[in-house]
């Protein structure tokens, strides 16, 4: 018996959020008195896979089929189901991200497993796996139970800080036979936003609203983001006015993010905006209007003009970094 966890990597480098998933799976395994087995697909070195031992994986099953360098959800579903059967797994863990959310529901159907999405806590294994998740755009938490024999859990990224330990996982090649239909989706082109931190998984995010006045002022947001190593985001009217690309728009109709730090500059904090960012651990709001609703959701607030505050904050971060190096 072993808890299974799916690994994602970018051209052979395991994603940080997958390390979180491994650590989470190991936490569940520990509660169940068993081990954690990672499953990896595509081109990746044995050394990289072994390093998963540092986050609690005992073993890695590797399907070294380079067709799986693209996401083929049906093929990866087949891999996970085969691995779960081989390992007699009570739990399969994926991330609650675009990949996990495409694969995990299929796996759950095949294994007749209860599916818990967006997990924010380790399951209460003694109580039908009761697991905490966000509900109603962050306005409440719901606890979901799954009375099924097998459970599939999708972990929300950025939920638990990583703790690196010692150890190497053993890596075993894993063979699965595929069918043509597993590769039914043809990838025509890939357009990666290069050189930037992907917003969905960013730990730090600097975001601008209509208070930034126009795209010509976005350098202020970018400079701060650059100093922090943060991703950039925006409110909806900013994307609608084409000041910023649409993938940066967060909120009810845009992306949902849960960074450790969300800095909102010149954003009023309408409920539809909060719906996408209220899961952030720490919120800093910069707004010249002391009555802006965002201050109610913020941990730290600066009542002031973004044009003056942002450059000062950037300088302060620079200074801080110089002192702490």
């Amino acid at each position, binding site marked *: 018996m072993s808890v299974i966890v799916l690994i994602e990597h970018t051209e052979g480098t395991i994603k940080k959020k997958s390390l979180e998933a491994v650590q989470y799976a190991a936490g569940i395994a520990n509660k169940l008195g068993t081990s954690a087995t990672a499953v990896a697909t595509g081109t990746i070195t044995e050394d990289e896979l072994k390093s998963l031992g540092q986050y609690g994986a005992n073993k890695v099953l590797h399907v070294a089929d380079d067709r799986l360098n693209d*996401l083929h959800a*049906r093929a990866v579903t087949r891999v996970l189901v085969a691995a779960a059967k081989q390992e007699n797994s009570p739990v399969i863990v994926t991330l609650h991200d*675009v*990949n996990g*959310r*495409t*694969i995990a*529901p*299929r796996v*759950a159907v*095949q294994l*007749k497993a*209860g*599916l818990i*999405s*967006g997990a924010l806590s380790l399951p209460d294994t003694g109580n039908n796996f009761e697991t905490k998740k*966000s*509900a*109603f755009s962050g306005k*409440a*938490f719901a*606890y979901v*139970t799954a009375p*099924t024999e097998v459970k599939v859990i999708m972990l929300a990224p950025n939920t638990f800080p990583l703790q690196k330990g010692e150890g190497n996982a053993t890596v075993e090649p894993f063979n699965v036979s595929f069918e043509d*239909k597993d590769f039914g989706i043809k*990838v*025509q*082109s*890939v*357009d990666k*936003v290069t050189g930037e931190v992907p917003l969905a*998984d960013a*730990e*730090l995010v600097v975001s601008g609203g209509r208070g930034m006045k126009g795209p010509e002022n976005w350098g202020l947001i970018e400079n701060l983001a650059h100093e922090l190593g943060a991703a950039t985001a925006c409110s909806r009217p900013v994307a609608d006015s084409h000041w910023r690309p*649409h993938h940066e*728009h967060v909120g*009810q109709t845009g992306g949902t993010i849960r960074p*450790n*730090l969300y800095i909102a500059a010149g954003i009023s904090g309408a*409920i539809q905006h909060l719906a996408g960012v209220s899961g952030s651990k*720490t919120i*800093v709001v910069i707004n010249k209007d002391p009555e802006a609703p965002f*201050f*109610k959701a*913020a*941990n*730290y*607030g*600066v009542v*002031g003009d973004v044009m*003056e*505050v942002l450059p*000062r*904050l950037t*300088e*302060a*971060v620079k*200074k*801080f970094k110089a002192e*702490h190096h």
Partner: protein
Amino acid sequence: MKVLVCISQVPDTVTKIVLKDNNTAVEENGVTYIINPYDEWYALVRALELKESGIVEAVHVIMVGRANTEATIRKALAIGGDEAIRIDADSNDCYQIASYIADYAKAEGYGLVLCGKESIDYANGAVGPMLAELLDTDFIGFATNIAVDGNTATVKREIDGGEETDSANLPLVISCQKGVAEARIPNMRGIMTARTKPLKTVTPSAVDAVTKVSRYEMPPAKAGVKLIAPDQMDELVNLLHSEAKVI
């Protein structure tokens, strides 16, 4: 080709959530229900656009819900759906919902099944891929653009840190998000004709739920915002480091 659009009913974003029954349920009195925005604004409208461009003959909308959800499903007809199906069951578990819809859809031979990327109540986003699994088709999630040519769909979708363009043969299940279409508001004519459009009620065969919400919890009240003077940015950075521990 016929398209099936899966819709769900959710509390409006601006609704205040109030818990009851020892935090095991949400108070329904006073909640305004709407069609889940991703289903309405993107999946439904794109289906209608495909019909207007002659690629699609008919747009059916389907919802799992009790009789009290009929106003919501009528709104989808007012926006332009041709026919609605209400599966008369509670909608608490993604697997149940997907199974009911799959059972209905199998017999109807839809070329395309569209749904929103997730519902804004529990944000599972699981009905689409489960439906694809049950219907033995491909699923493309988080679409930002959908084009259909003959038997092939070309779909732009969100990937980790970017976008990808995929193609796949029909039948296909796609979940939709911003970009796929622009929201439409039902007009008077739509509202009038919606009354006469067919709304079919189907009683599903029983499927067991595999999950259940056992209880709810309200987020802890914010401790209140700590205000920092605009000329004290060093202090803010220090607080973010030593107090919030985020940098």
